[in-house]
């Protein structure tokens, strides 16, 4: 679908065109899509702005429906309604023969909510530099790194993801993802591989992504699941015969060893530097490596993600008490490993 609009400016208006991709054009108003059929009131009610006003109201209405569908987790309907809202907005501009700046801005945002970056960029290109510079929202639309997760995820979940949006999303979460992978595998190269595999897994199932979901948590969950799967596969293959994989049934009675004595000259971890810092990193990695997969998983979930023991238990199909036992044991083992390691170093 191509739509011609004339700009509402003092200068000579060059004809501007918008090209919609297939996702948008399927909901062309003229073709009798849900935009028309769902809003029969359009024909017998006239708003102060006439047909253009009706279409404007319709666009807003569709955007509200889209937001509601997204809230309900129905992403396919949400994207469709956002796309329809863009079409209705363009029709409103056509009907009024002018470019209502506010409506263009809304349409650009709805296009981004639908993941249709090309259309949003078309709207952006219609704006003068001054208009973009003078509006916080246009500046945000122009800067992909300033997009909220919802826009980035919507752009990435499409059958042909927008590369710029994917780059921005990868940049935004790479640090935290790599950090988590490092904590799981405890080796830098393996962490980079796991982080990349995580992205590949996310992209292969990108149609499942929810723009209003917690993308960070989702990414970290995928990384953790991949790591767990690799541990299980290695165990099945007999490669981990020497590693201790504790039984889920195992209940442990341990003391509450939650702090570790370290002989340091600095009282604050953030002030550790150079050799002292590297030594502590090595000791911690060594101690974490001694833990079985379950213990490491529990410590990370509890202390890095802030997950409660009740939730950890639920994830494994066990009780809160069982998960508390796992946590106490993990703490106790880590403390013992770490203190022994520091003892040896002295």
């Amino acid at each position: 679908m191509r739509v011609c609009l004339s700009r509402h400016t003092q200068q000579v208006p060059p004809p501007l065109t918008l090209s919609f991709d297939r996702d948008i054009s399927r909901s062309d108003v003229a073709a009798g899509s849900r935009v028309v059929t769902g809003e029969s009131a359009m024909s017998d009610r006239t708003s102060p702005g006439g047909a253009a006003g009706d279409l404007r109201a319709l666009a807003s209405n569709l955007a509200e429906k889209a937001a509601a569908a997204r809230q309900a987790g129905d992403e396919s309907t949400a994207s469709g309604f956002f796309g329809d809202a863009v079409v209705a907005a363009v029709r409103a501009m056509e009907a009024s023969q002018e470019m209502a700046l506010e409506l263009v801005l809304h349409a650009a945002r709805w296009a981004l909510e639908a993941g249709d970056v090309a259309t949003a960029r078309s709207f952006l290109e219609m704006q003068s530099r001054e208009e973009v510079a003078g509006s916080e929202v246009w500046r945000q639309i122009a800067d992909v790194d300033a997009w909220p997760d919802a826009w980035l995820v919507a752009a990435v979940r499409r059958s042909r993801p927008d590369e710029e949006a994917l780059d921005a999303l990868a940049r935004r979460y790479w640090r935290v993802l790599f950090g988590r992978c490092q904590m799981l595998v405890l080796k830098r190269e393996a962490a980079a591989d796991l982080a990349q595999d995580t992205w590949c897994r996310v992209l292969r199932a990108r149609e499942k992504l929810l723009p209003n979901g917690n993308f960070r948590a989702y990414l970290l969950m995928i990384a953790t699941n991949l790591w767990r799967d690799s541990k299980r596969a290695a165990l099945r293959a007999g490669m981990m015969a020497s590693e201790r994989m504790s039984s889920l049934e195992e209940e442990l009675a341990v003391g509450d060893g939650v702090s570790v004595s370290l002989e340091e000259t600095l009282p604050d971890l953030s002030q550790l530097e150079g050799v002292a810092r590297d030594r502590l990193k090595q000791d911690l990695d060594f101690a974490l490596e001694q833990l079985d997969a379950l213990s490491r998983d529990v410590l990370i979930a509890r202390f890095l993600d802030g997950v409660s023991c009740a939730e950890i238990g639920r994830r494994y199909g066990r009780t809160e008490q069982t998960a508390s036992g796992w946590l106490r044991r993990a703490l106790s083992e880590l403390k013992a490993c770490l203190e022994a390691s520091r003892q040896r170093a002295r």
Partner: protein
Amino acid sequence: MKTRFLVEDLINWRSAQAEADVPPPPRAAKLLELTRPWWQVQPEHFQALVRQFETMLRVGYAMDPERAQRQSYPVPAVLAQTNVETNALVDVLYFSLRGRTLRMRFAVRVAADLRRPGLEVTFVAAESPEPLFCAKANLSPDGDYRLEVGVPTQLAEAWSRLRVTQRMPFRLILRPQDEV
């Protein structure tokens, strides 16, 4: 001087250290290339494997003397290992599709002993050389393979009533995980 640190603080500190020493992120183009299905990356290889099904259907079933007695329908498969492709039959032992999640258990009948811990399983349409989707199957302690995968919506609808005793509407290309 001895200082006591909470384990929680130590773990958070180590995580922050890891985040501070991060390599550059992968580029979108690279990630998208990595996620392309193998049949797009190696279309000739895929076509060659699909052609092997034709031979198998012509000759293989005729050489399966137990076929008439069996209640189930073995699924034609090609085991694609490095430099060698072997015809095989797959017995689907369990097939459950809930929503879009397919859980399947299967055994591979192949001349040589197949004890690979993991297989990459490519589902190919039974009647056309159309790749459907790909999944990873792991060897179970019982010696069969198990997979769980999200299938495309259209297939989920079409296969929702499929039972393990029915003829399966797909063929399989099996590739050992460690050779993929």
